[in-house]
Protein backbone atom coordinates (compact mmCIF):
# COMPACT_ATOMS: atom_id res chain seq x y z
CA UNK A 1 0.00 0.00 0.00
CA UNK A 2 2.58 2.69 0.87
CA UNK A 3 3.31 4.57 -2.36
CA UNK A 4 6.10 6.40 -0.55
CA UNK A 5 9.75 5.61 -0.19
CA UNK A 6 10.69 4.18 3.21
CA UNK A 7 10.42 6.77 5.94
CA UNK A 8 13.50 8.50 7.27
CA UNK A 9 14.40 7.29 10.73
CA UNK A 10 13.61 10.60 12.42
CA UNK A 11 10.17 10.72 10.85
CA UNK A 12 9.48 7.24 12.18
CA UNK A 13 10.59 8.24 15.61
CA UNK A 14 8.45 11.36 15.48
CA UNK A 15 5.37 9.35 14.57
CA UNK A 16 6.10 6.95 17.38
CA UNK A 17 6.66 9.72 19.88
CA UNK A 18 3.44 11.49 18.93
CA UNK A 19 1.33 8.38 19.21
CA UNK A 20 2.88 7.59 22.54
CA UNK A 21 2.26 11.16 23.74
CA UNK A 22 -1.40 10.86 22.87
CA UNK A 23 -1.65 7.51 24.59
CA UNK A 24 0.01 8.70 27.75
CA UNK A 25 -2.08 11.83 27.90
CA UNK A 26 -5.26 9.84 27.48
CA UNK A 27 -4.33 7.35 30.15
CA UNK A 28 -3.45 10.19 32.46
CA UNK A 29 -6.77 11.87 31.71
CA UNK A 30 -8.67 8.65 32.31
CA UNK A 31 -7.11 8.42 35.76
CA UNK A 32 -7.77 12.07 36.43
CA UNK A 33 -11.37 11.61 35.44
CA UNK A 34 -11.76 8.94 38.10
CA UNK A 35 -10.13 11.25 40.60
CA UNK A 36 -12.64 14.00 39.77
CA UNK A 37 -10.07 16.34 38.26
CA UNK A 38 -12.00 16.54 35.01
CA UNK A 39 -15.32 18.24 35.40
CA UNK A 40 -17.17 17.44 32.20
CA UNK A 41 -17.10 14.65 29.65
CA UNK A 42 -13.90 12.99 28.50
CA UNK A 43 -13.76 10.94 25.30
CA UNK A 44 -10.37 9.34 24.84
CA UNK A 45 -8.61 8.53 21.60
CA UNK A 46 -7.02 5.29 22.76
CA UNK A 47 -6.62 2.89 19.85
CA UNK A 48 -6.98 5.52 17.14
CA UNK A 49 -3.67 7.34 17.57
CA UNK A 50 -2.28 6.32 14.18
CA UNK A 51 -4.87 8.39 12.39
CA UNK A 52 -4.30 11.83 13.89
CA UNK A 53 -0.57 11.25 13.77
CA UNK A 54 -0.40 9.79 10.27
CA UNK A 55 -2.42 12.63 8.82
CA UNK A 56 -0.92 15.52 10.77
CA UNK A 57 2.58 14.51 9.77
CA UNK A 58 1.81 16.12 6.41
CA UNK A 59 0.38 19.32 7.75
CA UNK A 60 2.15 22.61 8.17
CA UNK A 61 1.49 24.84 11.13
CA UNK A 62 -0.60 27.13 8.92
CA UNK A 63 -2.80 24.26 7.78
CA UNK A 64 -5.92 23.89 9.87
CA UNK A 65 -7.83 21.02 11.45
CA UNK A 66 -11.39 20.79 12.72
CA UNK A 67 -12.19 18.03 15.12
CA UNK A 68 -14.84 16.30 17.17
CA UNK A 69 -15.81 15.34 20.69
CA UNK A 70 -12.96 12.83 20.55
CA UNK A 71 -10.34 15.40 19.75
CA UNK A 72 -7.43 15.20 22.21
CA UNK A 73 -5.36 13.18 19.75
CA UNK A 74 -5.96 15.63 16.92
CA UNK A 75 -5.02 18.55 19.12
CA UNK A 76 -1.77 16.95 20.27
CA UNK A 77 -0.85 15.76 16.80
CA UNK A 78 -1.33 19.29 15.47
CA UNK A 79 1.15 20.49 18.05
CA UNK A 80 -0.77 21.35 21.21
CA UNK A 81 1.39 21.00 24.28
CA UNK A 82 0.09 18.39 26.75
CA UNK A 83 0.08 21.10 29.43
CA UNK A 84 -2.47 23.10 27.51
CA UNK A 85 -4.62 20.07 26.89
CA UNK A 86 -4.60 18.73 30.42
CA UNK A 87 -5.04 22.15 32.02
CA UNK A 88 -8.05 22.74 29.79
CA UNK A 89 -9.69 19.53 30.93
CA UNK A 90 -8.95 20.45 34.53
CA UNK A 91 -10.76 23.71 33.86
CA UNK A 92 -7.76 25.95 34.43
CA UNK A 93 -6.82 29.38 33.16
CA UNK A 94 -3.74 27.88 31.51
CA UNK A 95 -5.75 25.54 29.29
CA UNK A 96 -5.75 26.08 25.57
CA UNK A 97 -9.25 27.58 25.79
CA UNK A 98 -8.52 29.37 29.08
CA UNK A 99 -10.90 26.99 30.85
CA UNK A 100 -13.87 28.14 28.82
CA UNK A 101 -14.07 24.99 26.72
CA UNK A 102 -13.07 21.70 28.25
CA UNK A 103 -12.49 18.49 26.32
CA UNK A 104 -14.96 19.23 23.55
CA UNK A 105 -13.96 22.83 22.91
CA UNK A 106 -10.20 22.82 22.44
CA UNK A 107 -8.95 25.82 20.49
CA UNK A 108 -5.46 26.85 19.47
CA UNK A 109 -5.87 28.73 16.21
CA UNK A 110 -2.28 29.92 16.38
CA UNK A 111 -1.21 26.37 15.52
CA UNK A 112 -4.15 25.57 13.28
CA UNK A 113 -6.30 23.78 15.86
CA UNK A 114 -9.64 25.34 14.98
CA UNK A 115 -11.65 23.54 17.56
CA UNK A 116 -12.91 20.24 18.81
CA UNK A 117 -16.69 20.15 19.08
CA UNK A 118 -19.57 18.98 21.18
CA UNK A 119 -21.79 18.71 18.14
CA UNK A 120 -21.35 15.96 15.57
CA UNK A 121 -21.13 17.32 12.04
CA UNK A 122 -20.16 20.99 11.89
CA UNK A 123 -16.42 20.30 11.65
CA UNK A 124 -17.01 18.97 8.14
CA UNK A 125 -18.64 22.19 7.03
CA UNK A 126 -16.12 24.40 8.77
CA UNK A 127 -13.20 22.62 7.14
CA UNK A 128 -14.95 23.14 3.83
CA UNK A 129 -15.19 26.83 4.65
CA UNK A 130 -11.50 26.98 5.51
CA UNK A 131 -10.86 25.38 2.14
CA UNK A 132 -12.93 28.12 0.57
CA UNK A 133 -10.82 30.77 2.28
CA UNK A 134 -7.59 29.16 1.19
CA UNK A 135 -8.74 28.97 -2.40
CA UNK A 136 -10.03 32.55 -2.45
CA UNK A 137 -6.81 33.81 -0.85
CA UNK A 138 -4.70 31.89 -3.39
CA UNK A 139 -2.68 30.11 -0.72
CA UNK A 140 -1.60 26.49 -0.72
CA UNK A 141 -2.91 25.86 2.77
CA UNK A 142 -4.99 22.78 3.44
CA UNK A 143 -7.94 22.14 5.77
CA UNK A 144 -8.72 18.83 7.44
CA UNK A 145 -11.94 17.61 9.02
CA UNK A 146 -11.65 14.65 11.37
CA UNK A 147 -14.94 12.94 12.17
CA UNK A 148 -16.35 9.60 13.22
CA UNK A 149 -18.47 7.07 11.37
CA UNK A 150 -21.45 8.57 13.18
CA UNK A 151 -21.08 11.83 11.29
CA UNK A 152 -21.31 10.07 7.93
CA UNK A 153 -25.07 9.68 8.28
CA UNK A 154 -25.51 13.34 9.06
CA UNK A 155 -26.60 15.94 6.53
CA UNK A 156 -23.45 17.94 7.20
CA UNK A 157 -21.39 15.18 5.57
CA UNK A 158 -23.53 15.29 2.46
CA UNK A 159 -23.61 19.03 2.05
CA UNK A 160 -19.97 19.56 2.99
CA UNK A 161 -18.45 16.95 0.73
CA UNK A 162 -20.58 18.05 -2.18
CA UNK A 163 -19.60 21.69 -1.90
CA UNK A 164 -15.93 20.85 -1.44
CA UNK A 165 -16.13 18.76 -4.57
CA UNK A 166 -17.90 21.19 -6.88
CA UNK A 167 -15.56 24.02 -5.90
CA UNK A 168 -12.45 21.80 -5.78
CA UNK A 169 -11.49 23.00 -2.33
CA UNK A 170 -8.28 21.92 -0.59
CA UNK A 171 -9.95 19.83 2.09
CA UNK A 172 -9.30 16.38 3.51
CA UNK A 173 -12.21 14.54 5.01
CA UNK A 174 -10.87 11.95 7.43
CA UNK A 175 -13.46 9.51 8.64
CA UNK A 176 -12.31 7.52 11.63
CA UNK A 177 -14.54 4.52 11.32
CA UNK A 178 -14.27 2.94 14.74
CA UNK A 179 -17.48 1.06 13.97
CA UNK A 180 -19.66 2.57 16.65
CA UNK A 181 -21.41 5.83 17.35
CA UNK A 182 -21.59 5.61 21.10
CA UNK A 183 -23.04 2.07 21.09
CA UNK A 184 -24.86 2.07 17.77
CA UNK A 185 -22.96 0.04 15.14
CA UNK A 186 -22.21 1.77 11.87
CA UNK A 187 -23.27 -1.46 10.21
CA UNK A 188 -26.76 -0.84 11.54
CA UNK A 189 -26.90 2.93 11.09
CA UNK A 190 -25.68 3.21 7.51
CA UNK A 191 -27.42 1.80 4.45
CA UNK A 192 -24.02 1.42 2.89
CA UNK A 193 -21.42 0.89 5.58
CA UNK A 194 -18.42 1.45 3.34
CA UNK A 195 -17.50 5.06 3.83
CA UNK A 196 -14.80 5.36 1.18
CA UNK A 197 -17.33 4.44 -1.52
CA UNK A 198 -19.34 7.49 -0.62
CA UNK A 199 -16.77 9.67 -2.35
CA UNK A 200 -18.31 8.66 -5.66
CA UNK A 201 -21.63 10.23 -4.73
CA UNK A 202 -19.86 13.58 -4.68
CA UNK A 203 -17.39 13.06 -7.46
CA UNK A 204 -14.37 12.97 -5.21
CA UNK A 205 -11.84 10.22 -4.53
CA UNK A 206 -12.59 7.94 -1.62
CA UNK A 207 -9.73 5.93 -0.17
CA UNK A 208 -9.70 3.29 2.54
CA UNK A 209 -6.80 2.77 4.88
CA UNK A 210 -6.01 0.63 7.89
CA UNK A 211 -6.45 3.12 10.67
CA UNK A 212 -4.36 1.06 13.05
CA UNK A 213 -1.34 1.18 10.76
CA UNK A 214 0.32 4.55 11.01
CA UNK A 215 2.28 4.00 7.82
CA UNK A 216 -0.84 3.19 5.85
CA UNK A 217 -2.50 6.34 7.10
CA UNK A 218 0.67 8.33 6.50
CA UNK A 219 0.86 7.14 2.97
CA UNK A 220 -2.78 7.68 2.08
CA UNK A 221 -2.75 11.11 3.68
CA UNK A 222 0.43 12.03 1.84
CA UNK A 223 -1.23 11.60 -1.51
CA UNK A 224 -4.40 13.38 -0.48
CA UNK A 225 -2.60 16.34 1.10
CA UNK A 226 -0.31 16.81 -1.89
CA UNK A 227 -3.25 16.68 -4.21
CA UNK A 228 -5.25 19.21 -2.20
CA UNK A 229 -2.28 21.51 -1.76
CA UNK A 230 -1.62 21.62 -5.46
CA UNK A 231 -5.18 22.48 -6.41
CA UNK A 232 -6.40 18.96 -7.12
CA UNK A 233 -9.39 19.24 -4.82
CA UNK A 234 -10.72 17.35 -1.83
CA UNK A 235 -10.55 13.70 -0.88
CA UNK A 236 -12.29 11.38 1.53
CA UNK A 237 -10.15 9.02 3.55
CA UNK A 238 -11.75 6.26 5.58
CA UNK A 239 -9.56 4.90 8.34
CA UNK A 240 -10.89 1.67 9.78
CA UNK A 241 -10.17 1.48 13.44
CA UNK A 242 -11.56 0.75 16.88
CA UNK A 243 -11.59 2.55 20.19
CA UNK A 244 -10.48 0.28 22.97
CA UNK A 245 -11.81 2.36 25.84
CA UNK A 246 -15.49 3.12 26.48
CA UNK A 247 -17.21 5.87 24.47
CA UNK A 248 -16.54 8.28 27.30
CA UNK A 249 -14.81 7.84 30.63
CA UNK A 250 -17.14 6.47 33.24
CA UNK A 251 -19.42 4.74 30.75
CA UNK A 252 -19.97 0.99 30.49
CA UNK A 253 -18.54 -0.84 27.55
CA UNK A 254 -19.57 -4.44 27.19
CA UNK A 255 -23.30 -4.21 26.65
CA UNK A 256 -23.00 -3.53 22.92
CA UNK A 257 -19.73 -5.26 22.08
CA UNK A 258 -18.10 -8.36 23.50
CA UNK A 259 -15.13 -8.01 25.78
CA UNK A 260 -13.22 -10.39 23.51
CA UNK A 261 -13.63 -8.09 20.54
CA UNK A 262 -12.09 -5.25 22.51
CA UNK A 263 -9.27 -7.48 23.69
CA UNK A 264 -8.66 -8.70 20.18
CA UNK A 265 -8.35 -5.13 18.88
CA UNK A 266 -5.99 -4.27 21.69
CA UNK A 267 -3.57 -6.73 20.18
CA UNK A 268 -3.75 -4.59 17.04
CA UNK A 269 -2.76 -1.50 19.02
CA UNK A 270 -1.27 0.99 16.55
CA UNK A 271 1.63 1.80 18.83
CA UNK A 272 2.55 -1.77 19.58
CA UNK A 273 2.32 -2.68 15.92
CA UNK A 274 4.47 0.20 14.86
CA UNK A 275 7.01 -0.57 17.56
CA UNK A 276 7.22 -4.15 16.41
CA UNK A 277 7.68 -3.05 12.84
CA UNK A 278 10.38 -0.53 13.65
CA UNK A 279 12.24 -3.13 15.62
CA UNK A 280 11.58 -5.90 13.12
CA UNK A 281 12.86 -3.83 10.24
CA UNK A 282 15.81 -2.84 12.40
CA UNK A 283 15.12 0.83 11.89
CA UNK A 284 15.66 1.51 15.56
CA UNK A 285 16.78 -0.27 18.69
CA UNK A 286 14.43 -1.06 21.54
CA UNK A 287 16.49 1.23 23.71
CA UNK A 288 15.73 4.21 21.46
CA UNK A 289 12.04 3.60 21.86
CA UNK A 290 12.33 3.06 25.57
CA UNK A 291 13.95 6.45 25.89
CA UNK A 292 11.07 8.01 24.03
CA UNK A 293 8.60 6.19 26.24
CA UNK A 294 10.32 7.53 29.33
CA UNK A 295 10.51 11.06 27.97
CA UNK A 296 6.86 11.01 27.07
CA UNK A 297 5.89 9.69 30.47
CA UNK A 298 7.80 12.51 32.10
CA UNK A 299 6.38 15.11 29.77
CA UNK A 300 2.85 14.04 30.54
CA UNK A 301 3.42 13.75 34.24
CA UNK A 302 4.90 17.23 34.29
CA UNK A 303 1.95 18.52 32.28
CA UNK A 304 -0.45 17.00 34.77
CA UNK A 305 1.36 18.63 37.66
CA UNK A 306 1.45 21.92 35.84
CA UNK A 307 -2.28 21.68 35.21
CA UNK A 308 -3.16 20.73 38.73
CA UNK A 309 -1.22 23.68 40.07
CA UNK A 310 -2.66 26.12 37.60
CA UNK A 311 -5.11 28.79 38.74
CA UNK A 312 -8.82 28.74 38.09
CA UNK A 313 -10.18 31.28 35.65
CA UNK A 314 -11.37 34.48 37.27
CA UNK A 315 -15.20 34.41 37.49
CA UNK A 316 -15.15 38.09 36.55
CA UNK A 317 -14.05 37.10 33.07
CA UNK A 318 -16.96 34.77 32.43
CA UNK A 319 -18.51 37.03 29.81
CA UNK A 320 -15.37 38.10 28.02
CA UNK A 321 -15.16 37.35 24.30
CA UNK A 322 -18.86 36.94 23.65
CA UNK A 323 -18.25 39.71 21.16
CA UNK A 324 -15.11 40.93 19.54
CA UNK A 325 -13.29 43.47 21.62
CA UNK A 326 -12.38 45.40 18.53
CA UNK A 327 -16.05 45.89 17.92
CA UNK A 328 -16.25 49.48 19.10
CA UNK A 329 -13.38 50.41 16.88
CA UNK A 330 -15.31 49.57 13.78
CA UNK A 331 -18.39 51.45 14.74
CA UNK A 332 -18.24 54.86 13.18
CA UNK A 333 -20.79 57.59 12.85
Amino acid at each position, binding site marked *: MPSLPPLPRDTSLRLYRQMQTIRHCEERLAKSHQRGLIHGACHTYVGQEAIAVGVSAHLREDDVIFSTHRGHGHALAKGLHPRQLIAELYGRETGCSRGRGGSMHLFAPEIGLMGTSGIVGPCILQATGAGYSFKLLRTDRVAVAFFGDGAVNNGAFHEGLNMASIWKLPVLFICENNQFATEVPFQYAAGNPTVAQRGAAYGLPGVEADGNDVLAVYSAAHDAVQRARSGGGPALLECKTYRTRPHAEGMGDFTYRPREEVEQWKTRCPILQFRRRLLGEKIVEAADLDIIDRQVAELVEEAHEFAEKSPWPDPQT*ATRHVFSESHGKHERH
Partner: protein
Amino acid sequence: MKATLEALSEEMAKNPRIFVLGEGIGKRGGNFNTTKGLFDLYGPERLCDTPISERGFVGLACGAAMTGTRPVVDFMFSDFLLDAVGEIINQIAKMQYMSSGRLKMPVLLRGCIGIGHSSATHHSGNYYPMYAHFPGLRVVVPAAPGDAKGLLKTALNCDDPVLFLEHKELLSTKGPVPEGEYCLEFGKASVAREGQHVTVVALALMLHKTLQAAAALAEEGISVEVIDPRTVAPLDMDTIARSVSKTGRLLIVDEAFAPCGIGAEIAAQIADRSFDDLDAPIRRLNGVQTPTPYSPSLEAAVVPNVETIGRAIRDLCEE
Protein backbone atom coordinates in the same frame (compact mmCIF):
# COMPACT_ATOMS: atom_id res chain seq x y z
CA MET B 1 -36.46 10.15 35.86
CA LYS B 2 -38.48 7.21 37.05
CA ALA B 3 -41.77 9.11 36.94
CA THR B 4 -41.59 9.83 33.22
CA LEU B 5 -40.29 6.37 32.43
CA GLU B 6 -43.36 4.89 34.08
CA ALA B 7 -45.65 7.31 32.30
CA LEU B 8 -44.12 6.49 28.95
CA SER B 9 -44.25 2.76 29.55
CA GLU B 10 -47.90 2.88 30.61
CA GLU B 11 -48.89 4.86 27.55
CA MET B 12 -46.92 2.58 25.24
CA ALA B 13 -48.69 -0.39 26.72
CA LYS B 14 -52.06 1.20 26.02
CA ASN B 15 -51.31 2.66 22.62
CA PRO B 16 -49.47 0.50 20.09
CA ARG B 17 -49.05 3.52 17.81
CA ILE B 18 -46.53 5.12 20.10
CA PHE B 19 -42.92 4.61 19.10
CA VAL B 20 -39.69 6.21 20.25
CA LEU B 21 -36.86 7.46 18.04
CA GLY B 22 -33.43 8.51 19.20
CA GLU B 23 -29.76 7.75 19.56
CA GLY B 24 -29.13 5.00 22.06
CA ILE B 25 -32.72 4.80 23.21
CA GLY B 26 -33.04 1.14 22.20
CA LYS B 27 -31.13 -1.52 24.07
CA ARG B 28 -29.09 1.09 25.89
CA GLY B 29 -32.21 2.66 27.37
CA GLY B 30 -31.29 6.24 26.62
CA ASN B 31 -28.43 8.46 27.64
CA PHE B 32 -30.52 9.60 30.60
CA ASN B 33 -32.32 6.27 31.15
CA THR B 34 -35.44 7.75 29.62
CA THR B 35 -36.32 4.44 27.95
CA LYS B 36 -34.64 1.99 30.29
CA GLY B 37 -36.19 -1.45 29.98
CA LEU B 38 -38.68 -0.48 27.30
CA PHE B 39 -36.74 -2.16 24.51
CA ASP B 40 -37.31 -5.52 26.14
CA LEU B 41 -41.01 -4.78 26.51
CA TYR B 42 -41.77 -3.22 23.15
CA GLY B 43 -39.03 -4.28 20.77
CA PRO B 44 -36.85 -2.55 18.19
CA GLU B 45 -39.56 -1.08 15.97
CA ARG B 46 -41.07 0.84 18.85
CA LEU B 47 -37.72 1.74 20.38
CA CYS B 48 -35.79 2.66 17.33
CA ASP B 49 -32.14 3.60 17.52
CA THR B 50 -31.34 6.22 14.93
CA PRO B 51 -28.30 7.39 13.03
CA ILE B 52 -26.99 10.83 14.07
CA SER B 53 -29.54 12.49 11.83
CA GLU B 54 -31.39 14.90 14.10
CA ARG B 55 -32.99 16.80 11.28
CA GLY B 56 -33.84 13.58 9.56
CA PHE B 57 -35.59 11.80 12.37
CA VAL B 58 -37.49 14.86 13.47
CA GLY B 59 -38.73 15.21 9.89
CA LEU B 60 -39.51 11.52 9.90
CA ALA B 61 -41.53 11.96 13.07
CA CYS B 62 -43.52 14.67 11.34
CA GLY B 63 -44.45 12.36 8.48
CA ALA B 64 -45.23 9.55 10.87
CA ALA B 65 -47.58 11.73 12.91
CA MET B 66 -49.30 12.75 9.68
CA THR B 67 -50.05 9.14 8.91
CA GLY B 68 -51.45 7.72 12.07
CA THR B 69 -48.68 6.94 14.49
CA ARG B 70 -47.48 8.84 17.53
CA PRO B 71 -43.74 9.37 17.51
CA VAL B 72 -41.72 10.27 20.55
CA VAL B 73 -38.38 11.81 19.65
CA ASP B 74 -35.85 11.44 22.43
CA PHE B 75 -33.02 13.76 21.43
CA MET B 76 -30.81 13.59 24.51
CA PHE B 77 -29.48 17.16 24.72
CA SER B 78 -31.64 19.96 23.37
CA ASP B 79 -28.57 21.49 21.78
CA PHE B 80 -28.61 18.70 19.21
CA LEU B 81 -32.14 19.59 18.24
CA LEU B 82 -31.04 22.85 16.66
CA ASP B 83 -30.26 21.01 13.43
CA ALA B 84 -33.96 20.17 13.26
CA VAL B 85 -35.38 23.62 13.93
CA GLY B 86 -36.61 23.92 10.36
CA GLU B 87 -38.60 20.71 10.70
CA ILE B 88 -40.02 21.82 14.02
CA ILE B 89 -40.92 25.45 13.28
CA ASN B 90 -41.75 25.21 9.60
CA GLN B 91 -43.33 21.78 9.43
CA ILE B 92 -44.41 20.22 12.70
CA ALA B 93 -45.72 23.46 14.22
CA LYS B 94 -47.56 24.46 11.05
CA MET B 95 -48.93 21.19 9.78
CA GLN B 96 -52.29 21.36 11.49
CA TYR B 97 -52.81 24.90 10.31
CA MET B 98 -51.63 24.33 6.76
CA SER B 99 -53.93 21.37 6.40
CA SER B 100 -56.76 23.41 7.90
CA GLY B 101 -57.11 21.02 10.76
CA ARG B 102 -57.39 17.83 8.74
CA LEU B 103 -54.05 16.56 9.93
CA LYS B 104 -53.17 16.22 13.60
CA MET B 105 -49.63 16.44 14.86
CA PRO B 106 -49.22 14.16 17.87
CA VAL B 107 -45.43 14.41 18.16
CA LEU B 108 -43.58 14.47 21.43
CA LEU B 109 -40.08 15.92 21.31
CA ARG B 110 -38.22 15.37 24.54
CA GLY B 111 -34.76 15.99 25.84
CA CYS B 112 -32.61 17.69 28.39
CA ILE B 113 -31.74 21.30 28.96
CA GLY B 114 -29.74 23.18 31.48
CA ILE B 115 -26.41 24.20 32.86
CA GLY B 116 -24.46 22.12 35.33
CA HIS B 117 -21.55 19.76 35.89
CA SER B 118 -19.29 21.52 33.40
CA SER B 119 -21.23 20.25 30.46
CA ALA B 120 -20.04 23.35 28.55
CA THR B 121 -21.67 25.25 25.77
CA HIS B 122 -22.74 22.44 23.46
CA HIS B 123 -24.58 20.49 26.15
CA SER B 124 -26.30 23.05 28.33
CA GLY B 125 -28.69 25.26 26.37
CA ASN B 126 -32.17 26.26 27.50
CA TYR B 127 -34.23 26.75 24.40
CA TYR B 128 -37.78 27.01 25.64
CA PRO B 129 -38.09 30.77 25.03
CA MET B 130 -37.37 30.22 21.36
CA TYR B 131 -39.94 27.46 21.00
CA ALA B 132 -42.51 29.39 23.01
CA HIS B 133 -42.23 32.27 20.55
CA PHE B 134 -43.75 30.37 17.64
CA PRO B 135 -47.38 29.36 17.20
CA GLY B 136 -48.29 25.70 17.05
CA LEU B 137 -46.12 24.21 19.77
CA ARG B 138 -46.78 23.21 23.38
CA VAL B 139 -43.69 23.66 25.52
CA VAL B 140 -43.39 21.87 28.85
CA VAL B 141 -40.63 22.57 31.38
CA PRO B 142 -41.37 20.46 34.46
CA ALA B 143 -39.61 20.90 37.76
CA ALA B 144 -41.04 18.11 39.93
CA PRO B 145 -41.30 14.37 39.26
CA GLY B 146 -45.06 14.24 39.79
CA ASP B 147 -45.62 17.13 37.41
CA ALA B 148 -43.32 15.53 34.88
CA LYS B 149 -45.43 12.38 34.93
CA GLY B 150 -48.75 14.19 34.67
CA LEU B 151 -47.55 16.45 31.90
CA LEU B 152 -45.95 13.63 29.95
CA LYS B 153 -49.20 11.70 30.06
CA THR B 154 -51.08 14.71 28.78
CA ALA B 155 -48.50 15.13 26.05
CA LEU B 156 -48.96 11.53 24.96
CA ASN B 157 -52.70 12.00 24.76
CA CYS B 158 -52.91 15.31 22.97
CA ASP B 159 -52.98 15.92 19.25
CA ASP B 160 -50.55 18.85 19.27
CA PRO B 161 -46.79 18.76 19.05
CA VAL B 162 -45.19 18.99 22.46
CA LEU B 163 -41.65 19.89 23.42
CA PHE B 164 -40.88 18.34 26.76
CA LEU B 165 -37.67 19.76 28.19
CA GLU B 166 -36.23 18.47 31.42
CA HIS B 167 -33.38 20.11 33.26
CA LYS B 168 -30.66 17.50 33.46
CA GLU B 169 -29.73 18.49 36.98
CA LEU B 170 -33.26 17.55 38.03
CA LEU B 171 -33.35 14.06 36.56
CA SER B 172 -32.68 12.40 39.85
CA THR B 173 -34.92 14.66 41.91
CA LYS B 174 -37.15 12.78 44.30
CA GLY B 175 -40.71 13.72 45.10
CA PRO B 176 -44.26 12.42 45.33
CA VAL B 177 -45.60 10.86 42.12
CA PRO B 178 -49.31 10.05 41.87
CA GLU B 179 -50.00 6.48 40.79
CA GLY B 180 -51.57 5.43 37.50
CA GLU B 181 -53.72 7.65 35.31
CA TYR B 182 -52.51 11.05 36.32
CA CYS B 183 -52.71 13.81 33.72
CA LEU B 184 -51.91 17.46 34.30
CA GLU B 185 -53.47 20.04 32.06
CA PHE B 186 -51.12 22.27 30.06
CA GLY B 187 -51.22 25.94 30.98
CA LYS B 188 -51.82 25.49 34.69
CA ALA B 189 -49.13 26.94 36.89
CA SER B 190 -48.56 25.58 40.33
CA VAL B 191 -48.20 27.74 43.40
CA ALA B 192 -45.20 25.98 44.86
CA ARG B 193 -45.13 28.15 47.96
CA GLU B 194 -47.66 30.66 49.21
CA GLY B 195 -46.59 34.08 50.39
CA GLN B 196 -47.67 37.65 50.82
CA HIS B 197 -44.88 40.09 50.03
CA VAL B 198 -43.55 39.23 46.65
CA THR B 199 -44.31 36.90 43.74
CA VAL B 200 -41.44 34.96 42.24
CA VAL B 201 -41.96 32.97 39.08
CA ALA B 202 -39.31 30.30 38.60
CA LEU B 203 -38.82 27.40 36.27
CA ALA B 204 -37.08 24.03 36.28
CA LEU B 205 -33.93 24.01 38.43
CA MET B 206 -34.50 27.64 39.38
CA LEU B 207 -37.74 26.66 41.08
CA HIS B 208 -35.81 24.56 43.57
CA LYS B 209 -33.22 27.25 44.19
CA THR B 210 -35.95 29.83 44.60
CA LEU B 211 -37.77 27.67 47.12
CA GLN B 212 -34.58 27.39 49.11
CA ALA B 213 -34.09 31.14 48.98
CA ALA B 214 -37.71 31.67 49.99
CA ALA B 215 -37.33 29.39 52.99
CA ALA B 216 -34.31 31.36 54.12
CA LEU B 217 -36.08 34.69 53.60
CA ALA B 218 -39.03 33.52 55.65
CA GLU B 219 -36.75 33.65 58.65
CA GLU B 220 -36.11 37.31 57.88
CA GLY B 221 -39.84 37.86 57.75
CA ILE B 222 -40.08 38.09 53.99
CA SER B 223 -43.00 36.04 52.72
CA VAL B 224 -42.42 34.85 49.18
CA GLU B 225 -45.02 33.34 46.87
CA VAL B 226 -43.33 31.03 44.39
CA ILE B 227 -45.01 30.06 41.14
CA ASP B 228 -43.91 27.38 38.72
CA PRO B 229 -45.56 27.85 35.30
CA ARG B 230 -44.76 24.22 34.38
CA THR B 231 -45.62 24.91 30.76
CA VAL B 232 -44.34 28.02 29.00
CA ALA B 233 -46.67 27.55 26.04
CA PRO B 234 -49.42 27.86 27.01
CA LEU B 235 -48.42 30.15 29.84
CA ASP B 236 -50.76 30.46 32.79
CA MET B 237 -50.82 34.20 33.26
CA ASP B 238 -53.98 34.14 35.36
CA THR B 239 -52.27 32.45 38.27
CA ILE B 240 -49.33 34.84 38.07
CA ALA B 241 -51.58 37.90 37.81
CA ARG B 242 -53.65 36.72 40.76
CA SER B 243 -50.54 36.42 42.85
CA VAL B 244 -49.25 39.84 41.79
CA SER B 245 -52.59 41.38 42.70
CA LYS B 246 -51.93 40.10 46.20
CA THR B 247 -48.21 40.87 46.54
CA GLY B 248 -47.75 43.87 44.24
CA ARG B 249 -44.24 42.68 43.41
CA LEU B 250 -42.89 40.38 40.72
CA LEU B 251 -39.54 38.77 40.08
CA ILE B 252 -38.92 36.15 37.41
CA VAL B 253 -35.98 33.80 37.95
CA ASP B 254 -34.87 31.90 34.88
CA GLU B 255 -31.66 30.14 33.95
CA ALA B 256 -32.32 30.84 30.27
CA PHE B 257 -31.12 34.03 28.64
CA ALA B 258 -33.01 37.21 29.41
CA PRO B 259 -33.54 38.91 26.04
CA CYS B 260 -36.85 37.90 24.57
CA GLY B 261 -37.13 35.23 27.23
CA ILE B 262 -39.97 33.85 29.31
CA GLY B 263 -39.33 36.44 31.96
CA ALA B 264 -39.71 39.17 29.37
CA GLU B 265 -43.03 37.72 28.27
CA ILE B 266 -44.34 37.43 31.82
CA ALA B 267 -43.12 40.92 32.70
CA ALA B 268 -44.71 42.38 29.58
CA GLN B 269 -48.05 40.77 30.27
CA ILE B 270 -48.07 41.88 33.89
CA ALA B 271 -46.98 45.40 32.94
CA ASP B 272 -50.07 45.47 30.78
CA ARG B 273 -52.86 43.69 32.57
CA SER B 274 -51.71 44.11 36.19
CA PHE B 275 -50.24 47.59 35.91
CA ASP B 276 -52.41 48.98 38.67
CA ASP B 277 -51.53 46.11 40.99
CA LEU B 278 -47.81 46.76 40.85
CA ASP B 279 -46.11 48.46 43.77
CA ALA B 280 -42.59 48.16 42.43
CA PRO B 281 -40.66 47.62 39.21
CA ILE B 282 -40.76 44.16 37.70
CA ARG B 283 -37.45 42.40 38.03
CA ARG B 284 -35.80 39.54 36.19
CA LEU B 285 -32.89 37.40 37.24
CA ASN B 286 -31.49 35.32 34.40
CA GLY B 287 -28.57 33.24 33.38
CA VAL B 288 -25.81 35.52 32.20
CA GLN B 289 -25.85 36.39 28.48
CA THR B 290 -22.93 34.26 27.40
CA PRO B 291 -22.23 30.81 26.02
CA THR B 292 -21.84 28.44 28.95
CA PRO B 293 -18.24 28.23 30.10
CA TYR B 294 -16.73 24.91 31.12
CA SER B 295 -14.63 25.59 34.17
CA PRO B 296 -16.54 25.26 37.45
CA SER B 297 -15.34 28.69 38.52
CA LEU B 298 -16.81 30.29 35.43
CA GLU B 299 -19.89 28.11 35.22
CA ALA B 300 -20.98 29.04 38.72
CA ALA B 301 -20.73 32.68 37.76
CA VAL B 302 -23.29 32.49 34.99
CA VAL B 303 -26.29 30.93 36.74
CA PRO B 304 -28.46 32.37 39.47
CA ASN B 305 -27.98 30.65 42.82
CA VAL B 306 -29.74 30.65 46.17
CA GLU B 307 -27.77 33.65 47.30
CA THR B 308 -28.26 35.83 44.22
CA ILE B 309 -31.92 34.88 44.13
CA GLY B 310 -32.32 35.79 47.79
CA ARG B 311 -30.61 39.10 47.19
CA ALA B 312 -32.81 39.88 44.19
CA ILE B 313 -35.94 39.17 46.24
CA ARG B 314 -34.74 41.25 49.15
CA ASP B 315 -33.84 44.15 46.85
CA LEU B 316 -37.23 44.03 45.22
CA CYS B 317 -38.99 44.04 48.56
CA GLU B 318 -37.09 47.17 49.48
CA GLU B 319 -38.22 49.00 46.34
